[in-house]
């Protein structure tokens, strides 16, 4: 066994690895996502993913980033399939 913890248990991919790439692309994809919501109104994660041809996990990740910074808001309730809808927050 390695005699130090960082070598024995390297940093988790939860905050490195592929997530770094998803984060890197967030601003590049923002205009497309917000544009889609502006055009089509509130959408679920799979609908956004399908419309833009992007993986659903990435679509969720980016939408949550936009929700965090108040550019997108989620519906109060999920639909019958368990999906929330995400709408553009219009800046006044």
């Amino acid at each position: 066994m390695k005699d130090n913890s960082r070598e024995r248990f390297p940093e988790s991919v939860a905050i490195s690895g592929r997530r770094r790439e998803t984060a890197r692309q967030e601003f590049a994809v923002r205009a497309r996502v917000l544009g889609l919501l502006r055009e089509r109104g509130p959408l679920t994660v799979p609908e956004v993913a399908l419309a833009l041809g992007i993986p659903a996990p990435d679509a969720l990740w980016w939408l949550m980033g936009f929700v965090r910074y108040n550019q997108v808001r989620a519906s109060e309730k999920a639909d019958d399939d368990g999906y929330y809808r995400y709408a553009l927050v219009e800046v006044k």
Partner: protein
Amino acid sequence: MDYDVMVIGAGIAGMEAAVSLGDMGYKVLLVEREPSIGGKMILLSKVFPTLDCASCISTPKMAQAASHANIDLRVYSEVREVRGDGSGGFRAKVAQKPAFVDFAKCTGCQDCEKACTVTVPDEYNEGLVSRRVAHIAFPQAVPKKAVLDRAGTSPCTFACPAGIKANGYISLIRQGEFAKAFQLVLEDAPLVGSLGRACYAYCQRECTREEIGDAPHIRHLKRFVADWYYARHAEPEYGPPARKHDKKVAVIGSGPAGLSAAYFLALDGYPVTIFEADAEAGGMLRSSLPEYRLPKDVVDRDIRNVTALGVELRTATPVESLARLRRDGYDAVLVAIGTPKPKKLLVPGEDLPGVASGIEFLAEVACGQKIALSGKRVIVVGGGNVAVDAARTALRLGAAKVVLQYRRTRAEMPAFHEEIAAAEAEGVELALLSNPVAFAGDGHRLQSVRSVRMKTVGADVDGRQRTIPVPGSEYSADFDLAIVAVGLSAEAAALRQEMRLNRDGTVRADARTLQTESPWLFAAGDAVTGPAMIVQAIGLGKQAAFFMGRWLRGESLDNAEFAPQLPVVSHEEVLARQKDYPSLNVEKSERHPAERIKDFAEVDLPFTEAEALASAANCLNCGICSECQECKKACPADAIDFDQREKVDDYDVGAVVVATGFRLFPAERLANFGFGRFANVISAMQMDRLVAPTRPFNYVLRPGDGRTPANIAYVFCAGSRDRTVDNPICSRVCCMYSLKQAQLLLGALPVADVTIYNIDIRAFGKGYDEFYEQTRAMGVRFVKGKIARITEKEGGNLLVRYEDIDDNGTVREAEHDLVVLSVGIVAQDECRALFADAELALDETLFVAQPGKQVDPARTSIPGVFSAGTATGPLDIPDSILHAGAAAAQTAAYIEKMKRKT
């Protein structure tokens, strides 16, 4: 003694130990490496078995630790070294990491965070969502102060002699903020349009992405924002700034260096007059760069960025006496006269009609003189940019044949290789390893050029191949025009009596301050360096303005640092951050060579908006922070400080408490469980964030597609009690935190099914077994079974394959839409390296060893050093606090014992 005790780590144990010791009257230095205290507990949803809100319990303790009269808190700080002082105490080095935010000014408003243009995974939300590079750690952070993540200076920005923040403006372009991108370039260089076309782009050469392909076209992006902005703003949006100074400055020369210096001096509030000998301003930008590379209307618009500040431009006004300028009331003078004088070959016939200098030829074309070369044969001698420009210009004037003659190999040609390739594509012939020895004519005009072939004979002192003539290889060829472009030199002869020149005719000035022997006289640009790139001249103009401003204000130039930068980030560091960097392929477009030689219209076609966005999207954010300056502009408290640097302080402390906590087992090491590969396999800490009030999602959703999970599985002992992953110990808390989460999930998702796959349940603390029974009674299903493998089905659901122990080990599969791995705890053993002259012993699992665990629970292998909380091994929160209390008591006893000794 500065402090009675230093506590390392401000999680719940460190805070408890510090507060207890502070309450006893001891002076405590509490050091935390994160920007906030609170450790992992503050990030939890609730605590077991009481289901109290973790924040509600933590935040009073955090506030107490932060505001305690006897505790000095150092957040975002790291202990670098601890040494014994020989009398039972210690000397500690504590580094304050640069947050690039003045904590005294920061109000925690988060305006910087909202303005930030770079996103990274949020470690405080276990990577479930992004955060900005400028950020406050989490909503309950104490202190609530912003920090900026900066790995260093991005290679592109670091390479720019003018300090233009390429990473920054690309980051703004990526956001669609084209005007802001233009403004960011303008802050460092006034000639945005010219640089966007004619800069030789050191930034591009240093771009990390050049190593892996699809690098952003950095210079072309700069051109895009200049074009975009100029199309909407025919004139600058600003006027002269408020005049702050009465002292006047004269700038001699209106090339890139002079314009740049004038711009920054005027911005600084100085009245500036530029004296230009030519009829129009711009220097080489106007006179030697052909229109197809740099349209003159772009130069004009760039110059208006300078004159809009109130800079007076006197063209056709050569300066013949510096003393006269002084008498006319100028307090400081900048010489930025460039290198307009062409060098000669010094071969026979060079003064024949039909033999011209490259720079004069280009200047005549630029000022509109009609030069008809239709059907003519032209030879251009030289391998630099002026030579290539002259050759391509001759083609556009109708020359039937253009030969570019250079005495070395193509690899040694000083011209930008993209330009050489473009010249070849347009039909310029290269005559390499060839040198003219005489120009022959009939006395009235050139008729032929006699040349000799050259051969390489090894490298020169500067690494270039040295060449010598090949004996007997002379040959003649007929030409109508020969253009000699073999270098330029300064022409400061008129001012020679008033300033010292170097042997090559350049102005002698201090390399750092650009001040000459006369304190009021400065020099910048090619006049100092000899012929160089536009961006270098702009950088030197800016540098001269900085030091001239200081001199004019009576400030010392000694030790004044111009444009400090963080060290450059290496390509290796950037490429190691990710396995791969997907990209978009974006090619620049240009006119077809056959078409473009017919006129002087621009060769490079501009990016469309979509192309600019795509090219910018390829940037790797090498510095992490792009230095776009948006945070600085947004901060109402002026708290952002890019010049902040690490500061190390020494402290004498009486004792040390190690409360450095633990890390979570990296779940991807369990290869069969798919963490990191299957979006709907998450860690329990991620689930804790999902059920926390400050959750990263709007609700409890599965990360794969945002659906509310209805059938959730927990896998116990994921990365603990498992020798195959080097973590044989029981982590003590996984059973209970998972039961807590199960209860919370049933509260949030009343119709959900929760299944817990376990080997056994360890519920040994006060009220724990009751909590387990309560969870069972709520309908959580417990399956005694070891998980073999998790596979992902189409649609993101997961098949859990397990051995059902209660059914004689039958192998079964069950489908779930979300799987939570109850990951174990592992040691945070960096504390071992802090002690320079004694060994802090660890146990076999790398936690801090407790040599007297039964009766002396906080004692470590080093007298005077105590451990608290999970630094010693897995503990739940109540036990961690109890242990911290014991550590405080033992530390106090030690301090008293030492006091009595002295």
